[in-house]
């Protein structure tokens, strides 16, 4: 009898966690890290009924890029100023390589720091930084 959970079942469980736990659990193993930062998991996570709508953007916004860190934010997307390509008034409550926004507004799905183009999260996570430890 196996008491190990099949790998393909893990996302079902992890998508019910809060962001705070997921950030911590990225250091459980390399497999968990790549699962939690994968486009598939991110879309599963954002669509999970129990989770608040969250958007994981695995790249930094332009004005934060230098810091090589990203932030965990809970604020409406209006905080993004498309003219200046900057975030303002973010309620920052955590730092990570990725940041999260509580409200998902499609018109503001960014964020490729180099081009400023709108990037789908599934594409964004394929960027260099997302795979970097």
């Amino acid at each position, binding site marked *: 009898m196996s*008491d190990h959970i099949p790998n393909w079942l893990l996302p079902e469980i992890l998508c019910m966690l809060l962001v705070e736990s997921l950030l911590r659990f*990225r250091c459980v*193993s390399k497999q968990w890290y790549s699962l939690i930062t994968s486009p598939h998991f991110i879309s599963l996570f954002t669509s999970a009924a129990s989770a608040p709508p969250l958007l994981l953007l695995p790249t930094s916004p332009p004005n934060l890029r230098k810091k090589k860190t990203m932030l965990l934010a809970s604020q409406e997307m209006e905080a993004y100023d498309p003219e200046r390509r900057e975030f303002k008034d973010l309620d920052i409550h955590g730092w990570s390589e990725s940041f999260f926004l509580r409200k998902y507004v499609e018109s503001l799905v960014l964020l490729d720091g180099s081009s400023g183009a709108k990037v789908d999260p599934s594409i964004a996570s394929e960027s260099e930084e997302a795979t970097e430890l």
Partner: protein
Amino acid sequence: MASTTETKQKKMLILKSADNDEFEIEESVGVQSETIKNLVEDGFTFVPLPNVYTKALIKIIDYLKKHANKTDSNDEEIKTFDKDFVNTTFDDLFELVSAANYLHISCLMNMLCQTIADRIKDKSPEAVRKIFHINCDYTPEEEAKIRKANAQAFEGQFDESLD
């Protein structure tokens, strides 16, 4: 008399576990599982479940029986049953979630996944590794780098217990 007729009319199914134990259940109870429902629709009354072991199957049959008798009045009773159902070890929960997934019982799947998530959410990464039987494959340097990059996610005390 009426009840005798009813009993006779009840269609029964045999479920066979991975360790070859057989269980007879009412079809109406079994079809809450999409996997069983599909087989029943194809005319099967004998259902081998090569991925579900006896221990898990007994619990799942209990669950299906309880939930098949759901009415407006026994809501509290079912809630209590569910609470008791998930009050078990992580290894049992993992076994059950695999079985529920194979059997496609979505309400049970959701309940089990939510239970596991709730029970690990405040755990330390070390405790999670032990619970999930994972060997850490990071070098100490790699792990330190991740922790440093996510420093705030590691502030405070985390639950080190394994239950």
